C-alpha cells in the first residue's frame, strides 16, 4: 500500500530545520525592530531593554520550534481518507532525546539567569552623590519631598529631577498599597504602609514623563497620576531655591496669600497649602490645575475654569464634603473626604478665600 509506505518513510528533518531557522531569524528580527518600550530616560532603562532583547532572541526559537512541529505534524501526519483504522508506530520514548530537551532549556535558563543577575546588580548599584527624594503615596495622589540639609524640606506635587544626577527614592504609603512607577525610567516599587521601600534611578533625558500608580489602591487608582520633569541641573537648582524661599514672599501675583499675611493669620499660606499641603493634608495641586499655584494635574477639575463665578460656600462645601456635588465628567469617591480634619478651620477659610480670589481673575 502506497499509504503505508509513505508513512514508513523517514521524515526528512533538514527542510524543517531550515524553515525553523529562517522563521526564527525573521521572528527575532521583527522582535528587535519593534519599538516595544516607552522612551528611555534613565541609565537603568538601557540594560533592561537589552535584557528584553535577549529574551526575544532566546524565546522566539522556542516558540518557533513548538509551532513548526505542530503545524508540520498536522499537515504531514494528518489522517488521510482510508487511514481511519491505522495506528502510528509504537514509539514509547527515547532517552537520548529526552536528555537533550531537558538539558538545552536548562542551559538557556542558566545563561539567562546569570545575565539577569548582572543586569540586576547593575541597575540597583549605589551611585556617588545620590540625592534623596521622599515619595509619599496616598489615596489618590503622589507627593514628593526633597530633604534639605539643615532646613525645611521642599515639598512638591510634581517630581522635579536634575538630569544625570543619581536619585534614590524613599517610598512610603499612608493608607493602602500604591506603586511608584515612572515608565520612562523602567523602575517601580510598591509603596507599602509601615515600611519604606526604595530604588535608584539616574535620569538621562530632559523631558516630562508620566508618573503612574501601578498597584490597585481603590476607586481613584486609574487617575492616581502625576508628572516627572527632568530638567537641567541649573533649572533644578533655581526651582529648588524658589521653593525654599520664604513662602509667599518671593511670589509675584499671589495677592490672596499676601492679603492673608497682612490680616489675621500671617503663618497661613493658602497657596502653599494648595500646592504642597500643610504636612498632613494632601496637596490640592496633586489633583487640580491652578495656574496661580503652578499646579497642573488633571485628576480633578481644573479649578481655574470651574470655579469661575462660584461663591465661597460652594467652594467650602466642595472641599469639606466632596460628595455633596460631583463635578461633571468626574467621579465621586476620589477627592479625599477628610479635609475638614486635616485642615484647621483657619487654613480652610484661607484656602477658600484664596481660591475665591484667584479663580475670580
Amino acid at each position, binding site marked *: 500500500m502506497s499509504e503505508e509506505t509513505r508513512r514508513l518513510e523517514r521524515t526528512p528533518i533538514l527542510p524543517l530545520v531550515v524553515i525553523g531557522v529562517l522563521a526564527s531569524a525573521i521572528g527575532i528580527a521583527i522582535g528587535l525592530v519593534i519599538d*516595544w518600550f516607552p522612551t528611555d530616560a534613565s541609565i537603568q532603562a538601557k540594560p533592561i531593554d537589552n535584557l528584553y532583547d535577549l529574551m526575544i532572541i532566546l524565546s522566539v526559537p522556542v516558540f518557533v520550534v513548538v509551532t513548526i512541529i*505542530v503545524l508540520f505534524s498536522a499537515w504531514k501526519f494528518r489522517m488521510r481518507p482510508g487511514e481511519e483504522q*491505522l495506528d502510528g508506530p509504537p514509539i514509547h520514548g527515547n532517552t537520548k532525546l529526552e536528555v537533550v530537551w531537558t538539558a538545552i532549556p536548562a542551559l538557556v535558563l542558566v545563561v539567562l*539567569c546569570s545575565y539577569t543577575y548582572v543586569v540586576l546588580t547593575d541597575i540597583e548599584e549605589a551611585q556617588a552623590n545620590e540625592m534623596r527624594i521622599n515619595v509619599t503615596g496616598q489615596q489618590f495622589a503622589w507627593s514628593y519631598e526633597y530633604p534639605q540639609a539643615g532646613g525645611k524640606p521642599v515639598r512638591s506635587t510634581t517630581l522635579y529631577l536634575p538630569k544625570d544626577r543619581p536619585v534614590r527614592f524613599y517610598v512610603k504609603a499612608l493608607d493602602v*498599597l500604591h506603586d511608584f512607577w515612572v515608565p520612562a525610567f*523602567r523602575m517601580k516599587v510598591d509603596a507599602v504602609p509601615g515600611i519604606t521601600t526604595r530604588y535608584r534611578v539616574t535620569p538621562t533625558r530632559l523631558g516630562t514623563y508620566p508618573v503612574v500608580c501601578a498597584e490597585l489602591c481603590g476607586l481613584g487608582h486609574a487617575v492616581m497620576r502625576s508628572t516627572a520633569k527632568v530638567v537641567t541641573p541649573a533649572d533644578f537648582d533655581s526651582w529648588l531655591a524658589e521653593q525654599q524661599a520664604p513662602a509667599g514672599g518671593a511670589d509675584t501675583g499671589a495677592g490672596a496669600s499676601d492679603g492673608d499675611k497682612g490680616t489675621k493669620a500671617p503663618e497661613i499660606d493658602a497657596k502653599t497649602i494648595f500646592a504642597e499641603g500643610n504636612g498632613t493634608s494632601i496637596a490640592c495641586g496633586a489633583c487640580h490645575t491652578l495656574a496661580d499655584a503652578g499646579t497642573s494635574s488633571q485628576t480633578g477639575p481644573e479649578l481655574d475654569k470651574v470655579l469661575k463665578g462660584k461663591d465661597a460656600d460652594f467652594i467650602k462645601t466642595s472641599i469639606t464634603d466632596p460628595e455633596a456635588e460631583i463635578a461633571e465628567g468626574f467621579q465621586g469617591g476620589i477627592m479625599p473626604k477628610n479635609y475638614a480634619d486635616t485642615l484647621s478651620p483657619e487654613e480652610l477659610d484661607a484656602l477658600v478665600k484664596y481660591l475665591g480670589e484667584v479663580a475670580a481673575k
Partner: protein
Amino acid sequence: MVAKFRNPGLYRAGLYTVYAVALAYAIIWVFRTWYSLDPVFKGEAVLELALFLSPLGFLIGLGSFSYWFRWATGKPTIPEDHSGHGAHSWRDYFKVNTDHKVIGIQYVVTSFVFFFIGGLFAMLMRAELAQPGRQFVDSSTFNGLFSVHASLLIFLFIIPVFAGLANYVLPLMIGAPDMAFPRLNALSFWMLPLGGIMMLLSFLAPGGSFASGWTAYAPLAVTAPEGQVFFTIGVQFAGASSIATALNFLVTIITMRAPGMSFFRMPLLVWANFSTSLLVVIATPFIAVSQFMVFFDRALGFNFFEPAGGGDVLMYQHIFWFYSHPAVYIMMLPGFGIVSEILAVKSRKPIFGYRMMAFSLLAIVVLGFTVWAHHMFVSGMQDWIRVPMMVTTAIIAVPTGIKIFSWLATLWRGVLHLDTPMLFALGFLTMFTLGGISGVMLAIIPVTIHVSDTYFIVAHIHYVLFGGSLFTIFAGVYYWFPKMTGRMYDERLGKIHFWSTFVFFNLTFAPMHVIGIQGMPRRVADYAEQWATWNLMITIASFFLGLSALVFAYNMVASWRGGPKAESNPWRALTLEWQVTSPPPIFNFDAIPTVVGGPYEYGVPGAVHGVLKDAEVPTPVGAAAHGESAGTTATKDEEH
C-alpha cells in the same frame, strides 16, 4: 406542600437559609445586647454572620449532612439503597446525588454557567475600555467587574470544571465504581455554587461589589466597603469544596484502582489529578487563612495587617501567593492530563516518555511551592528573596518543557485525527508555550520590575489561562462529550468554534503584550490617549471571542438534546472509560475490570489496557473485537 419543605431538597434548603439569616440576627442581638453595644443590629455584623451561616443552612436543608447527622448521634443510618445513583430526569441534578457521574455533570454545567457570567463581565469591561475616559461604568463598578470576573473564572470555573471532568472520568478510568467518599463528593459540589452566588450577590452590597482584584491585597481589602466580605467568605466555600474533592481524588486513586493498575499504568489524566490534588490539599489552606485574617482585621479590628499595631502588610502577599502560585498549577496540571489523553488517542501513538510525563508533573508540584515570591518582585519585600525565586521559577520551565516536547514527539509520525478535541489540544500546545514564555520573561526580575502590574501581565494571564487551561477544557469537554451525554457533538460547529476562538483569542490578547510594555497599567477603567487604537481593536476582537463562546454553548445544548447517539468508543481509545457504554451504566462496571497493560499502547499489535471481565466470561457479543481482546489477554497472561 408541607412535605416539600420537610424533606431534603431545594425547598427545604431555601427555608433553612432563611432560618440561618434569622439565626444570624438572633445571635447578633443576643451578643450586642449583652455587651450593650449600639446599634443592636449592626448591619455589617449581621451580614457577615449571615454569610457564614446561610450557606450552612442551605446545605443542611438540602440534605448534604443528613447521613452524617444520623451517624454522629449513633442512630441507625439509612442503608444505602443506591437510589441516589444515576439521574433519571433533569430534576435529579438539583438534588444531593452521590453518583460521581451525576456530580461530574453538575460540576461541569455549573462551572460553565459561571464561565459565561464571568465572560459577560469581561465583555462589559472591554466595552468600558473601548475608549479612553469613562463611558458605561464608574470605576467602582469597573473594579468590581474585573475582580468578580477573575474570581469567578478562577474559583468557580477553571478549578471546579477540571474537578468536574475528573469526577466523571477518573473513577471510570481507574476501574472504580465510584469515588471513595460519595457523600463528601456531593457536599463538595454543593458548596461550590454557594460560593459563586455569594460572589455575584456582592454587587448588591452597599458600596458595590468587592473591588480589590482577585488577589484582594490587604490593606485595601481590609478597608474596602462591605462587598469585600462576599469574596472573603465566598472563597472559603469554594476552597473547602476543592480541598474536599482533592482528598476524595487522592483516596480514590490510592485505594480504589482496579487490579493490575499499578501507578505506572494509570492514564496521565489520573496522574495529573493526583498531582493537582496534592497541590490543593497542601496549598488551599493558605488562601483560606489569608481571607480569615482579612476578615478578622475587618470585622473585629485585629492587627494582622495593621502596621501601626505591629502587623505586617507584606505577610498577606506571602501567604496569599503561597497558595495562589500553586493555584496556577492547580489550574493547569489537570489540563496537561486531558491533553495527554487526547494527543495519544488522536495521534494513534503511545505517549512519548510516559514516565517522564508523570515525573515532570510531580516535579512541578514540588517546584510550585518554591516560587511564590515571583509575584512580589516589586512588592518591597526583602531584596535577597528575589534571585532565588527567579531561579526556581526559571527551573519550572524545564519540567514543563519536557512535557511540551514529549507531546510534540507524540505527534511525530502519528496518524493525526484533526477533529475538534485535537485542534484544541494542538492550539493549546502553541498558545500555552507563548504564555509560558511570557511567564519566563516575568521571572526575569529587571523585566518584571518594568512590566509588573501592566497589561503584559494580563496578556500572560490569558495566554496561560485561556490559551492554556481553557483550551484544554474545551478539548476535554468535546472529547468526553459522547461519554458523558451519550450523544455526538456537531463536528462542524466544533471546528467553527475552534477557529474563531483561536483567531479572536490571539487578536484580543496578543496586543496586550505591546500596550503592557508601553506602560499601560492593569486594573484601570481609564487610560492615556496613546493606547486608544489598540484598546478599540482588543475590544472588538473580544466581542467576537464572546460570540465564539456562544457557538460552543449552542453546540453543546443542541447536541445534548438532539445529537446522534454515540457509540461506546467513538475514538477507539484504550482507557477504561471508553470500554463501557456511553453514557456508562449506573454502577460503571458489572464487575471490576482487570488491567493488563499500559493505557496508551496504540500501534502495539494486539495491545490491551484493561479487560472488563474475567477471561472466562461467556458472552462474546461484539464479534471480532471481543475475540481479539480475549486472545490478547491470554498472551498477556503468558508474559507474566
